[in-house]
């Protein structure tokens, strides 16, 4: 972590720690300038991020530790946070507290002070708390805890300079000391634990909290259960926090118990209609606004094609490469950009706004009842929402689920949610076959996502009674207050961090895919292009699923990027060797109908688009997350089963 610059200027490592949802990540972005996305649900920051800052000649390395409720590790992320604090790798420790929720933050801050008496308490959102009538006497708090207490506003940047100044001071102005006011019996036990373990008395409580066998034996020897010791430790910090809260915080009026908006968002009869309405609205806006920029982009790219071709033709050694580079790689790349970028640029910011205002934890809250019946975790609802954007993002997001079993279920079933890359095919096929109006199409796609949600629940249940047997575990989730998002900042960050990143990743796989597809379509074996051999081979399987060989080939070849499925299919149908653009919906329909499509083919293709194997990026991500080929295979097969089932069902009925 530590690196010295050329001038051997020492780098001061500063760890940022705190409860989830205290604005730690926002402060981190403010300090380091690294654009990192900050969401509004508990435990979002799962990777350790670090970033540098130069202030008055001092080099700082800020480390953003995962949000944690306690130093008692309930998850690997919390363990990382604790171990980092203990390791002394950080010369400075900043505990971030939420001024609007300071009572809870304080107990955690005190337990950090117990092991790191040199810690700084950083009170975030002090301005917002003041608006709510909460005043915090930081001077008094600093005196009673014997440590620096600094108010900041991570959003506006207020107080950040002062914080950096104080962090620059080589030594704290006075000797800092905080001692947890344990009861005498507990102090004796902790003393004994520290002697046996040969550790500092002040960190002995961590061993007791973690259920260390020595701590258990010592407790017994003193005639107490480990349970009683642990409760007493937690209670000591909580009571001490209560006292400090009482003496340093003044509150004008009582907070309302719960906002009226919350009662509607989670109401018995209103919750689910509202969630569907939001989904519908997002899809409607995505469908209706993405069309025009998509067309403009593809026009732009095709107008650039002729000069590009001339350039290739003019350079003698590039000339033979022109078809493969322009028709293959350039064609696929520009297609992916023009089809994918506009809907993503609309979808992701809208999604981020919902996330920022705190709607997502309410979705998880509303859905948990259903998930718990399927023996899974309500937080899976969050990862499903993320999956709507990009399944690979959803799969990584499963880390917010603490039970390994439930995390695995969420990970495996994530690809049942159609990602942004699959929207174009869903939208265009249903637009062409089922309806001709944007509203009805948005309705149809909302319905399809409802099918996906039901299938996710069903598959989660099936996994829970077979491969991942078990009962639903402990579920506790903080529901942060609804807040007005910083509109433009959220949109900008979402475009840069989400839409753009996902696009780049798609392009990285689309380029080689374009090359391979071009070769398959243009290299012939015994007179027929390879791709024709494949479609012929897959024809029986395709017909069995209510589709045809070409559709199945398109699905297989779009493994690297789902968004190329439809253009690829049209390329096969028209057998013209490069991705083809369709001028209008009616021409799309006529091409499909000419190739034998019926309503049944359309429905089966929609079902298969909704649920088939995950894209290669998702598979690689799930391998990274599970570190197991077996579970990656399961991730591959699980969405395929209901997809095939649904196709067969449609074939039977229609």
């Amino acid at each position, binding site marked *: 972590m530590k690196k010295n610059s050329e001038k051997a200027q020492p780098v001061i490592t500063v760890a940022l720690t705190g409860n989830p949802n205290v604005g730690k990540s926002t402060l981190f972005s403010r300090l380091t300038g690294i654009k990192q996305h900050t969401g509004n649900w508990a435990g979002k920051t799962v990777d350790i991020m670090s970033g540098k800052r130069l202030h008055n000649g001092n080099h700082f390395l800020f480390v953003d530790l995962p949000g944690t409720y306690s130093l008692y590790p309930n998850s690997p992320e919390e363990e990382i946070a604790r171990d980092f604090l203990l390791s002394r790798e950080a010369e400075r420790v900043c505990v971030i507290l939420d001024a609007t929720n300071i009572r809870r933050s304080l107990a955690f801050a005190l337990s950090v002070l117990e092991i790191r008496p040199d810690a700084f308490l950083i009170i975030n959102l002090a301005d917002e708390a003041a608006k709510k009538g909460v005043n915090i006497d930081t001077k008094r708090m600093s005196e009673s805890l014997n440590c620096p207490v600094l108010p900041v506003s991570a959003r506006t940047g207020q107080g950040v300079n002062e914080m950096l100044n104080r962090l620059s001071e080589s030594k704290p102005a006075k000797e800092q000391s905080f001692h947890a006011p344990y009861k005498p019996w507990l102090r004796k036990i902790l003393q004994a634990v520290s002697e046996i373990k040969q550790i500092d008395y002040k960190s002995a409580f961590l061993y007791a*909290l973690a259920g260390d066998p020595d701590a258990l034996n010592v407790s017994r020897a003193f005639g107490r259960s480990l349970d009683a010791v642990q409760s007493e430790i937690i209670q000591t910090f909580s009571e001490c926090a209560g006292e400090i809260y009482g003496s340093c915080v003044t509150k004008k009026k009582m907070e309302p118990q719960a906002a009226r908006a919350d009662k509607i968002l*989670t109401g*018995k009869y209103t919750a689910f209609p509202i969630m569907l309405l939001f989904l519908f609205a997002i899809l409607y806006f995505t469908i209706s606004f993405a069309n025009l920029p998509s067309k403009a982009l593809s026009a732009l790219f095709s107008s650039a094609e002729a000069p590009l071709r001339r350039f290739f033709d003019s350079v003698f050694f590039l000339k033979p490469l022109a078809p493969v580079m322009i028709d293959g790689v350039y064609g696929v790349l520009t297609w992916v950009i023009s089809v994918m970028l506009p809907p993503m640029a609309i979808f992701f910011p809208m999604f981020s706004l919902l996330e920022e205002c705190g709607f997502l934890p309410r979705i998880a809250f509303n859905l948990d009842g259903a998930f718990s019946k399927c023996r899974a975790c309500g937080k899976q609802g969050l990862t499903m929402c993320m999956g709507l954007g990009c399944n690979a993002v959803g799969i990584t997001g499963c880390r917010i689920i603490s039970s390994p079993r439930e995390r695995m279920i969420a990970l495996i079933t994530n690809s049942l949610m159609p990602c942004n890359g699959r929207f174009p095919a869903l939208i265009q096929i249903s637009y062409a076959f089922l309806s001709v109006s944007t509203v009805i199409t948005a309705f149809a796609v909302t319905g399809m996502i409802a099918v996906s949600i039901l299938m996710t629940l069903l598959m989660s249940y099936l996994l829970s009674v077979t491969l991942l047997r078990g009962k639903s575990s402990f579920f506790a989730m903080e529901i942060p207050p609804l807040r007005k998002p910083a509109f433009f900042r959220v949109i900008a960050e979402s475009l840069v961090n989400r839409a753009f990143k996902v696009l780049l990743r798609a392009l990285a796989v689309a380029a080689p895919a374009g090359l391979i597809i071009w070769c398959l379509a243009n290299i012939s074996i015994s007179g027929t292009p390879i791709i024709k051999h494949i479609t012929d081979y897959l024809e029986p399987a395709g017909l069995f699923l209510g589709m045809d060989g070409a559709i199945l080939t398109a699905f297989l070849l779009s493994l690297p990027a789902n968004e190329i499925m439809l253009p690829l299919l049209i390329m096969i149908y028209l057998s013209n060797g490069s991705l083809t653009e369709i001028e209008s919906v009616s021409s799309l329909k006529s091409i499909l109908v000419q190739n034998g499509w019926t309503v049944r083919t359309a429905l089966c293709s929609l079902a298969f688009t909704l649920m088939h194997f995950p894209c290669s990026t998702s598979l690689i991500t799930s391998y990274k997350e599970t570190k197991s080929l077996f579970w990656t295979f399961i991730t591959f097969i699980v969405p395929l089963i209901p997809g095939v089932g649904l196709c067969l069902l449609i074939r039977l009925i229609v």
Partner: protein
Amino acid sequence: MRPMPLTRLSFGQTGIIQWVSGEEDKKSRLMNLGFIPGERISLALISPLGNPRAYRILESTIALRSKDARLIGISIKERT
């Protein structure tokens, strides 16, 4: 008043936590979330399916399933 499980708390009532039980792991998790004997607690939200419910504790709102909320015993303060 006799202690009763947290699940019996209804809107508008304020409870005082009397005890927290559950095997070690669950108990300390609950306590770390702020469910600590002596703290005031009230019901904030009920999810559309009736379970989980969200409780107001230590100035924040925490959702718990009834299975876990039963591990917490409260006594009712007078109606507020």
